[in-house]
């Protein structure tokens, strides 16, 4: 099954290589990996999805912790979490089809960000299955080009474990226990 890990790492050169190399070395296949800045300049955050069973997932977590630059690992596979993927989709849309494509994009809450006589480019953000759904309905019109970022994830609610990983810079997190799903 697909496991989703949030990995907090030191923002240092070469850390991405260390993480990627670990997955290759231990023969785990990364399904998607994203990395970016966080609220703290010295911490980067990765969201990694891997196909693994429970034991494998535990071993991945333990092995990630063995990397000196890894601060915190959370397996949020079965946790309430916000998971978002972003896609840019260029669809063939000549005069006749254009209004249909626009309609579909708006149903999926996608935004048209580029228009040319032969095509439309749609930006869509959301859970992966939502994006899969849009791509599916656009396919008959002709998907000319498509790129996805891979997912980023965040736990729902007020838990901000990232702070525990870097106590020196931990900020008082908003102590709001209510989580609104939107």
């Amino acid at each position: 099954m697909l496991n989703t890990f949030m990995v907090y790492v030191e923002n240092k050169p070469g850390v991405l290589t260390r993480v990627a190399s670990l997955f290759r070395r231990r023969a785990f296949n990364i399904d998607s990996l994203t990395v970016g800045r966080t609220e703290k300049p010295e911490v980067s955050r990765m969201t990694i999805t891997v196909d693994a069973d429970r034991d494998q997932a535990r071993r991945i977590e333990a092995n990630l912790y063995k990397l000196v630059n890894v601060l915190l690992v959370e397996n949020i596979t079965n946790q309430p979490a916000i998971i978002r993927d972003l896609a840019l989709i260029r669809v063939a849309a000549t005069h006749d089809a254009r209004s249909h494509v626009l309609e579909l994009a708006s149903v999926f809450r996608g935004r048209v960000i580029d228009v040319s006589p032969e095509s439309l480019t749609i930006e869509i953000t959301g859970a992966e299955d939502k994006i899969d759904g849009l791509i599916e309905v656009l396919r008959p019109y002709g998907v000319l080009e498509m790129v996805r970022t891979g997912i980023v994830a965040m736990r729902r609610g007020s838990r901000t474990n990232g702070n525990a990983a870097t106590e020196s810079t931990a900020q008082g997190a908003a102590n709001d226990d209510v989580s609104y799903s939107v």
Partner: protein
Amino acid sequence: MRDPKNTPTAATPTTGKTRTESKTSSKTMTGASILWECLEREGVKVVFGYPGGAILPAYDALKHSKIHHVLVRHEQGATHMADGYARASGEVGVAVATSGPGATNMVTGIATAMLDSIPIVCITGQVGSKLIGSDAFQETDITGVTLPITKHNYLVTHASEVARTIREAFYVARSGRPGPVLVDITKDAQQGTCEFDWEAAKPQLPGYRPDLSPAPAEYEQALELIHNSKRPLILAGHGIMVSGAMREVRDFAERAGIPVALTLLGIGAFPASHPLNLGMMGMHGEAWVNHTIQEADLLLAFGMRFDDRVTGNLKNYAPNAKKIHIEIDPAEINKNVKVDVPLVGDLREVLLELLPHVESIDRSEWLDSIDRLKGDSAVRDIQNLPDSGHLYAAHVINDLWHQTRDGNTIVVTDVGQHQMWEAQYYKHEHPRSLITSGGLGTMGFALPAAIGAKVACPEAEVWVVVGDGGFQMTMCELATLVQENLKIHIAIINNGFLGMVRQWQEFFYDRNYAATPLLNPDFVKLAEAYGIRSMAVSERSQVVPAVEAARRHEGPMLINFKVEQEDTVYPMVAAGAALHDMIRRPSPIVETAEDE
């Protein structure tokens, strides 16, 4: 998974020698001088190295240091020497090399240390930081190359980073599950200057947590399994030595009445002569030890990692046994063998926690049944076979053991048949008295590792037990041995073959001895060329006199033991076979149906 928040984060390193005369004020120094200063403060007395262009600034600054530099003949030798130094002393070993080929020559030694969890720090020079990425002369991305075979590594591009990096490197290398750390320092970082302040250069490792400990509930589960077990067995590994838990393991085994089986790297962690000691397990372990594992109802794995060489086929490994795994590295839990109770932490601390609660239980029935498993093993032992007039390696090692058993002896082996015979016939009573490459199985390890061991323990009597194949991989270090005036004895177990490979060809490849017969030099003359006294031995009666002669001689000595060419290590669990499914030495008296 253990919640890391419950454990202290970024533990403050307590290691590293603090000097009484504290240098409070900082002073301006070059990166190269800071390097040696930091090594001294970490307690380093000796480094093993080989100079070259990119590390020259460091070598230039060496003249101001008290550290002794051992010039090796090949950088692989430097890493094995640092490794042997660490294994013999328990301290961090240090190897130095230049960029490019110097650094890549270290790769085998680093991987050897990685697989056996040996703390070494490798310092390499690197081309100037502005040249990095330009394919400059002797430029190699050595941090990239060694990424999967180091515990951690660093690229240092400024003099101001040298101090903290060296402190972190030593801390990482020696703490938790030890391992090799490589520090790659650019030439300009060595030449540049900055303020040096030891105190301010404290390690900053917020993500590094080497000090996990089990939860109380896990201790209780473990104790319940121990007390309910009728046929328990301790599997004693290298972690006992690393943790310094020899006494605790002994106390535990004696109090609970549990027998002990050893891994190859666990040899010495539990005295061979102890009544609860069964001997070595695994591919070439004693037959009764492997049978005991298969019949046990509880395995207590102490600082070992269920390597495939000790488990055989995992599908039918110890089928009746619950497993308790005491291990400092959480990534080892459930890696090969699924365990019932993992106790993740330092072995000594975990045992100290368990010991007061361990009940004394009479397990004489179990111990008696293990005794019966020994069956006709003694009869099959080559020691007890009628003298055929041939010299067997087992004879050599058995006699060597008899001659040196009472001394402070360290045996350093290479890899192959002689290594297994050493493990079987040399009865080690003390930790760190056998030094051998287990996980990586690195041929060429013995001679340089012995040099490192002798430098670490000048009072010890050091014997190299090495095959004719492995010896020729690193025999250039004979020059280092002579240069350092080290009294090391070298016993070449010379069978004219790559013996272990030949054995596999005999069993599994229809005796097609492809590329295993060796054309050897005259080892006696070779030793003489280096100024090393030497002799050849080909009869059993000459073994003891030769060993005595070597011990009497004030310098190093090499003995070329010409042994039976096609001898075989028994018992043997074929790769992929079940642990109880062993190939046995044919019994001269009765063929038993007991073993397949």
